[in-house]
């Protein structure tokens, strides 16, 4: 049978699985064939879980055959970022420090996907301890971009983005503290959703920075992101910060028109120092939404110029605090980049950390003010294209900057506010590299974010493009 099922989004596969027209084992075999063929060149996985996956696929097949269909994730091949604890499966966080760690428990989000009937095909590659944006990993090699294997896949959920884009799995679970879901989604040409902070339990996700860490999906379509979010969101006694708000039926509620909705355009900051090719494609995406009846309004979001410094103080201090005992006992097991970030975290002032958290409150207020005039705020996800592996500088229009400065720039504000944001594919560069369109919303208003993203996606074909592999 030709390999075609694995290219489809979950929303198309689920009804076929439910009606027993296709088998979870058949789907799993297609995913494994892709993984076997592509892992040597793309390196999207740290651990491939063929045995566990086959067992889950057979279980799913048996259950569905007996009429026990669990829902749209039942029998779907999924990769899990290696940041999430997986029972009886090695969890490295992309580091030598945890190279031999086999948890005896599941992260809450993993447990929920398991309950929903997922078939885990592997632990996706990631930047060491999620502490970077390239996924150029000193311990496990770089995860490469399916659209151009000489380039980085973005990070820190780079393996997740590459695995979904190259159809080695249908969906993936990632995490985002400074853009780590949306960055790889943008550079790999898939959908990446960072939900509101605490919408999804962080229990069992190895922290980068507790107050910035978000858990969310990378998928082939907006509808799949809605399905994934519904499965993993909700309160969790193991994570006291997890919100107790009711979880909407995202998939149902996101359907509908965007006519009359207001697109906030923050010209300052979010549209400055952007590659002209990206600027052009994102402007076209805004016009596309306008053609569907949405209206654009310019919005002001002051205080953004402090975001990089706020991110630095919060991330470095919280990360160093978490890693204190590993630093004491296994310091030489860290790669040089992460080791230096962790060492530097010891020398930043508590007053700067608290000031950053206070400025964060102000930022939330400023964004809430902007949301009085707009339903969503749109921007490019990234100002520049991903560089080749090993290169750390990018050209963001008129600005040459480090990849970390460039890739965090439009992403970190939404981690600092904790408000939801999604990246959807919106076109390609002249050299065939994908471009991401970012749509952000009010706290816990994922429905509106998904609605705008879905309306855009359904009126274009960008999400249907596949890398030639």
């Amino acid at each position, binding site marked *: 049978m030709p390999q075609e099922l694995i290219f489809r989004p979950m929303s198309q596969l689920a009804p076929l699985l439910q009606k027993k027209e296709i088998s979870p084992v058949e789907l799993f075999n297609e995913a494994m064939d892709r993984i076997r063929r592509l892992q040597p060149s793309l390196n999207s996985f740290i651990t491939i879980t063929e045995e566990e996956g086959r067992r889950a696929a057979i279980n799913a097949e048996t259950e569905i055959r007996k009429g026990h269909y669990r829902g749209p994730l039942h029998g779907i091949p999924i990769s899990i970022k290696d940041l999430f604890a997986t029972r009886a499966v090695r969890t490295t966080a992309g580091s030598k420090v945890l190279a031999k760690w086999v948890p005896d428990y599941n992260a809450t989000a993993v447990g929920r996907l398991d309950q929903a009937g997922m078939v885990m095909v592997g632990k996706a590659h990631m930047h060491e301890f999620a502490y*970077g944006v*390239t996924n*150029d990993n000193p311990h496990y090699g770089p995860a490469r971009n399916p659209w151009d294997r000489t380039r980085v896949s973005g990070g820190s959920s780079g393996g997740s983005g590459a695995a979904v884009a190259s159809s080695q799995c249908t969906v993936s679970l990632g995490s985002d503290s400074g853009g780590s879901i949306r960055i790889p989604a943008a550079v790999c040409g898939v959908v990446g959703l960072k939900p*509101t*902070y*605490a919408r999804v339990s962080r229990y069992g996700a190895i922290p980068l920075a507790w*107050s910035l860490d978000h858990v969310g999906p990378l998928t082939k379509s907006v509808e799949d992101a809605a399905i994934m979010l519904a499965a993993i969101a909700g309160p969790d006694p193991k994570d006291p*910060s997890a*919100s*107790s*708000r009711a979880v909407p039926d995202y998939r149902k509620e996101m359907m509908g028109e965007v006519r009359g909705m207001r697109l906030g355009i923050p010209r300052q900051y979010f549209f400055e*120092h952007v590659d002209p090719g990206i600027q052009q494609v994102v402007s076209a995406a805004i016009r596309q939404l306008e053609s569907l009846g949405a209206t654009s309004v310019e919005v002001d979001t002051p205080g953004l*110029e*402090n975001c*990089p*410094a*706020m991110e*630095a*103080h919060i991330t*470095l201090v919280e990360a160093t605090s978490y890693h204190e005992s590993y*630093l*004491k006992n296994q310091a030489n097991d860290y790669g*040089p*980049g992460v*080791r*230096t*970030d962790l*060492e*530097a975290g*010891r*020398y*930043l002032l508590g007053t*700067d950390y*608290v*000031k*950053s*958290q*206070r*400025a*964060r*409150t*102000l930022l*939330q207020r400023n964004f809430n003010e902007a949301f009085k005039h707009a339903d969503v705020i749109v921007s490019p996800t990234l100002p520049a294209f991903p560089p080749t592996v*090993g290169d*750390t*500088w990018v050209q963001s229009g*008129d*600005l*040459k*900057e*480090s990849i*970390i*400065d460039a890739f965090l720039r439009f992403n970190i504000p939404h981690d600092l506010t*904790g*408000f939801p944001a999604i990246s959807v594919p919106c076109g390609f560069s002249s050299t065939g590299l994908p471009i991401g369109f970012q749509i952000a919303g009010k*706290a*816990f208003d994922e429905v509106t974010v998904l609605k705008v993203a879905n309306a855009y996606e359904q009126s274009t074909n960008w999400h249907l493009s596949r890398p030639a592999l």
Partner: protein
Amino acid sequence: METRSSRLNRRAWIQGSGVGFATLLFGSPLLAQEPPLRTTLRLMSAVTGTQLSDEWLEPTATLVSVILEDSKPLRSLELGAIEPATYFTAD
């Protein structure tokens, strides 16, 4: 073309080549700032409880100085009675 290399991008050195790094640092105000910062970091062992080895002293001092440089506008920000969002809740 505008570049920020004159003050060295935060964490840019991490994956950069030694040559690129030296080039970027040349002429930077950080050059003047770093030797005293290295000394300060050494002296801070009493505060941090750890002794930073020579191997890590220079890159750490570089990164800290970049962050401090980036933080000047933040430090001058007047926040009045605004409290920290140490534990974000949107509920």
